[in-house]
């Protein structure tokens, strides 16, 4: 039985206007999010993972602009919705949590007021009902002594508590889709583990589809069902999490996994990926990874590879692997 995705993204094209012309930050990105499942999106700075996330909510900052593609939520294209209609979806059916909850929360309102506001805006709840629901939600995300903590201001809470508040705020309307952009990167490792456990638990309870963006392959490996790897604005590989980490296909994914120091064992020098990510303003004509790729052939420098199926639910953009 085919699984019906909640959110479909097709050929997303996000560009930033610069003096040197348009820079394509996300270039032909397509994926589906499924109820109750997590898609991990990994890549290094500037690969386009955050811009992809922001575009789903219509939040790409100028001079960036979504130039093309479709973002279909239950078949409706969010990119062509009027602002007002989009506002009704944001925070209710799609919501987002960010890396640094301190900057995402308003410092002059209590966290309880901020969680309650979401309900008042989207579900027209009364002030008292919204407050009660906010406190209940705070309890649900594991905040001890929720009625008192609801009256705290963001600066009075620890980083882990603030991220729990963000999660409470993001999930209070039981959205279909949650976008999490590096939600645990600013947290300590034991707190990170608590937040990951909480996200998995809430997902099981609410059936939320999660897009989980991170630079940390270990974290993604522990939370994602499927993983998508981006490089220089393109998706270079997509696969079920187990097979991606066990047997990566794209030379970039292989390089990334090999280059990481491992906690389980000690090795000699790390197999480094030479060079750096290409400048998006002056991309080479062929494969964007060819410059750094140990397996690059002559034709890799000329032919821009497409993302192609490679069997077992996997796809890869490499002419050596999927010609």
């Amino acid at each position, binding site marked *: 039985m085919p699984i019906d995705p909640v959110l479909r993204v097709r050929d997303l094209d996000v560009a930033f206007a610069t003096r040197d012309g348009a820079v394509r930050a996300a270039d032909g990105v397509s994926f589906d999010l499924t109820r109750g499942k997590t898609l991990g999106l990994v890549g*290094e*700075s500037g690969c386009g993972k955050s811009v992809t996330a922001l575009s789903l909510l219509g939040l790409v900052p100028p001079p960036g602009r979504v130039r093309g593609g479709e973002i279909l939520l239950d078949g409706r294209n969010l990119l062509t919705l009027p602002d007002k209609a989009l506002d009704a979806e944001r925070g209710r059916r799609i919501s987002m949590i960010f890396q640094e909850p301190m900057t995402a929360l308003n410092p002059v309102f209590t966290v309880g007021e901020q969680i309650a506001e979401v309900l008042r805006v989207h579900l027209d709840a009364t002030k008292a009902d919204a407050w009660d629901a906010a406190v209940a939600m705070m309890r649900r995300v594991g905040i001890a002594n929720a009625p008192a903590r609801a009256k705290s201001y963001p600066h009075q809470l*620890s*980083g*882990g*508590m603030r991220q729990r508040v963000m999660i409470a705020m993001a999930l209070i309307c039981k959205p279909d889709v949650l976008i999490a952009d590096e939600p645990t990167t600013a947290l*300590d*490792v*034991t*707190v*990170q*583990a*608590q937040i*990951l*456990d909480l996200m*998995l638990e809430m997902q099981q309870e609410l059936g939320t589809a999660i897009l989980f963006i991170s*630079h*940390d*392959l*270990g*974290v993604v*490996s*522990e*939370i*994602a*069902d499927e993983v998508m790897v981006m490089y220089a604005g393109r998706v270079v590989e997509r696969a079920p*999490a*187990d097979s991606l*980490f*066990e047997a990566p296909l794209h030379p970039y994914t292989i*390089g*990334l*996994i090999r*280059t*990481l*120091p*491992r*906690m*389980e*064992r*000690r*090795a000699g*020098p*790390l*197999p*480094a*990926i030479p060079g*750096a*990510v290409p400048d998006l303003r002056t991309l080479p004509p062929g494969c964007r990874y060819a410059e750094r790729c140990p397996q690059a052939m002559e034709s890799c420098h000329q032919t821009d590879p497409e993302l192609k199926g490679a069997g077992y639910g996997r796809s890869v953009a490499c002419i050596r692997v999927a010609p």
Partner: protein
Amino acid sequence: MKPLLEARDVVKTFPIAGNRLFGRDGRRTHAVDGVSFRLEAGETLALVGESGCGKTTLARTAALLLAPDAGLLSFEGETVSGLGRRDLKPLRRRIQLIYQDPFGSLNPRLTAGAIIAEPLVIHGLGTAEERRKRVADLAEAVGLTAGDMERYPHQFSGGQRQRIAIARALAPEPCLIIADEPVSALDVSIQSQILNLLGKLKRERGLTYLFISHDLSVVRHIADRVAVMYLGRIVETGPVDDIFENPRHPYTRALLSAAPVIGRGKRRAHETLQGDVPDDAAGIEGCPFHPRCWITRAECFLTRPNLAPIVGDERHLSACHLRDEGRI
């Protein structure tokens, strides 16, 4: 043999803001609370722990940038705690720092060449010509070109900036490098380049590293010995393989099991440590870890455990009453 650096019962406190609107009420927080360790020449000791555990304060104290409130610090066998500014200056040349953020730690108005030469100028080392030669040698050693030396920090990527910071640290020929999260701000592919560079420089120059990191994979890769800190104290220390394969403190166990591992598959319910780190150990009777610990017994609530060797291994120390029991 005398250790290169030795700390004995080092304490460093800071005043904390009180409830009064202005000024302080005299309370102090113990950032480093009676820490002892030895750093042998040529080894890499990693300090690990979560935010607020005191690892950065301890590093800055070891770098002679902060004077300890109490305790003894010695460098190359000489007591250095209590020395004045003038006596510290020649020692500071021998101990250099690399910071986490290669964006904030380089002067944006100086060229890379001038940044690397600055410690030489400050310490009055060499003639202008000799300095130029030394900068060129250092640039090559860290993988930068002669042309790079004319450019400004904003013209470099994060990884290249960290190379500049490393060259600057090496300029006055230190024997000890204190690196505070030197690869945490870098992308994965750049992180391994910098770790390899630090390894190569250590072998070539016989350096000693005090390496601060929250990333256990990085620590496993680079350290010879590890010291785990919690609430301003070392709770466990020992050779790196012993710490990772046979942790003898429940906090170390919790850190190791919380760290994500690639390819282990989706999370199941782990032994996830509950709660947050308290602000200060001051109000906690007994073992400072007991409020979060899952294997406590009566004495844990009453007496603070000392950092002492486990049975059968003089080099592996734990500050846990149950250090020799199988339950950790």
